């Protein structure tokens, strides 16, 4: 058990490190650096910058040192929560991101919850009534859910929302709460807006979980202990729920490992379509403006969020499945 934990923790740390390197790469990749971009911005507004001033700026940001020194400098600052300045805003990156990261997290969590709520009954039903009309229907829907990229779902939803209900389905808050401080009313407002984007995000993941879970339940249903349970006279729903479903529940937790990256990825792009105040639109804006510190930080934080989420799901898996505990 401890070995399992340690292994997973090491893996999570290794992943975080890999993400930090990739992030740094993204920050470094564009030709020129932060200062050249900054100077170009200043010049476009009419103010001139001398070479001396540029060099001073470079020294201030440590851009005149070798790449690996810059990396460790950046990493050291990042570990202390200092992610540098977002130049477009002239404010610290962390301030610009603000509660957008929290909203991204809430949205992703809600999407995971929706995935479970949808996948649980569908997969059990499809397995128990294999090859029935509903099984085929759900399988087909699952295929479509897998196939249609979620930003297209969002677009199509927006079209229907507009043409049939004459309502704009985007956003996470009503206008009066958009810039307000957190309060009971704001949370309630968020709750009202959350289901739709969360559902859009959940669709693709649901399809995957249903596929795995259905196959698992099917495998379990053929085992002799199910026949035993039935022959001792248990009501059918208890036969199904108490034994095969309990055993097949594993993918629910273990799929978070790949569900989370998928959902976080999706949240970035559907936030743009539905104009949700998450980090997605900010990331795109930062990338288009070549504000690489802001963009890199967002990629890093999203990655970290995924890794931590996956690690928590590992803990949950250990708690729910005695086989995993025994293995370690």
């Amino acid at each position, binding site marked *: 058990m401890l070995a399992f934990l340690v292994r997973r923790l090491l893996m999570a740390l290794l992943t975080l490190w890999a993400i930090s390197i*990739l992030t740094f790469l*993204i920050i470094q990749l564009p030709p020129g650096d932060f200062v050249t971009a900054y100077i170009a911005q200043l010049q476009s507004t009419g103010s001139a910058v001398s070479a001396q001033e540029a060099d001073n700026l470079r020294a201030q940001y440590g851009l005149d040192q070798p790449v690996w020194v810059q990396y460790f400098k950046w990493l050291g600052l990042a570990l202390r929560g200092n992610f540098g300045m977002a130049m477009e805003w002239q404010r610290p990156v962390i301030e610009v991101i603000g509660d957008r990261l929290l909203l991204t997290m809430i949205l992703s969590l809600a999407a995971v919850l929706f995935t479970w709520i949808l996948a649980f009954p569908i997969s059990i039903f499809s397995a128990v009534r294999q090859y029935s009309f509903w099984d085929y229907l759900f399988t087909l829907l699952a295929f479509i859910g897998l196939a249609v*990229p979620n930003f297209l779902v969002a*677009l*199509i939803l927006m079209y229907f929302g507009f043409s049939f209900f004459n309502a704009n389905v985007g956003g996470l808050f009503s206008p009066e709460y958009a810039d307000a401080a957190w309060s009971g009313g704001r949370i309630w407002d968020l709750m009202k807006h959350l289901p739709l984007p969360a559902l859009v995000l959940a669709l693709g993941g649901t399809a995957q979980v249903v596929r795995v879970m259905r196959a698992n339940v099917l495998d379990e249903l053929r085992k002799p202990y199910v026949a035993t349970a039935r022959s001792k006279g248990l009501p059918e729903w208890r036969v199904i729920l108490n034994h095969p479903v309990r055993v097949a529940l594993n993918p629910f937790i273990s799929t978070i490992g790949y569900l989370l990256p998928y959902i*976080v990825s999706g949240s970035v792009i559907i936030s743009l379509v539905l104009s949700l105040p998450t980090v997605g639109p900010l990331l*795109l804006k930062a*990338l288009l403006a070549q504000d690489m510190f802001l*963009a890199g930080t967002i990629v890093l934080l999203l*990655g970290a969020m995924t890794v931590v989420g996956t690690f928590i799901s590992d803990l949950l898996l250990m708690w729910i499945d005695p086989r995993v505990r025994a293995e370690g």
Partner: protein
Amino acid sequence: MAKVIAADPAQTRLVNKQVAIASQWQLMWRKFRRHRLAMVGGIVIIAFYLVVIFADFLAYSNPDASEAQRGLLSPQPIHFFDNGRFSPHVYAITGTRDPQTFKRVYKPDPNTKLPVRLFAPGFEYKLLGLIPTSRHLIGVSGSDNESTLFILGTDLQGRDLWSRLIYGTRISLTIGLVAVGLSLLLGVVLGSLSGFYGGVVDNIIQRVIEILRSIPTIPLWMGLAAALPRDWSVLQVYFALTIIISLLGWTELARVVRGRFLSLRREDFVMAARVVGCGQLRIVFRHMVPSFLSHIIAATTLALPAMIISETSLSFLGLGLRPPAISWGVLIQQAQNVQAVALTPWLLLPAIPVIVTVLAFNFLGDGLRDAADPYAQLTK
């Protein structure tokens, strides 16, 4: 998906008898044909790739020809009958500017009928890159500037959406192929190293795969794609994108290859080959590869839609292919906001081919995977 179990013992025997004389590929084909959805998927895919090949013929106007006087024209219905006689035609369209909103409004003119003809002359092109011609599948006869056809409407710059969609198919479907080719190369090399040697190599490659899979891909793709220099040509961006997409997309293929290697290593025929003294290369390429080639093909088919979606998503965000390149993502980008979706819903039409091809690839891949598994029936 659906695995057919022969209930009747006599039938099982019959099937077994046929198996005795059928080659592996014949067996696969037989199994595949029974998978109806996969067959449909396969046919749809073939049709789409025919569009890729004959794009110039199917498009009836130059995809880059813009006409400010025709901006945001809604799809033009084709009338098939004229006074009870079969004579397909469209009405000519006159555009005027609304004096209040300054928007262009279009009015069809039922008195001016433009006959729609098959194999009508249009812009010059080279069929298959060889045969110079100017015939197109459909078109309106009397090709002066005023008489034009817009069966799916036009975009903001007045370019014909149908023709752009056809040309977009060319780029969107080939970028997927190139990217999947690169992923396949990476996946097969790393997967087979991992599966064949095992030990430390396997451990390192597996950890790398795990790490790559636990990182949200879209933000990373966005970061990498945004780093592409703005002044690169369409072709450079195209190849850079395929590399970016495949750099993160090879993991699934590598896992499949590794899994096959691991399970085949213990098979009797591999052992037999080793015992009679075959070299390692011969064992791999003469004995192992042919027996999992079909799996690789299936896995590749299943990986393709992900690549197509990646390209579409990136181009949709404005970080992938950029105009003047035409791809499905570039086309959908015009329907990005509520106003566009509400006022000009036909700009959303390029979403349909994306959904159809991705679904078709999934069905096809699923059928291939089922057909490729030689043990699917024995284990039941």
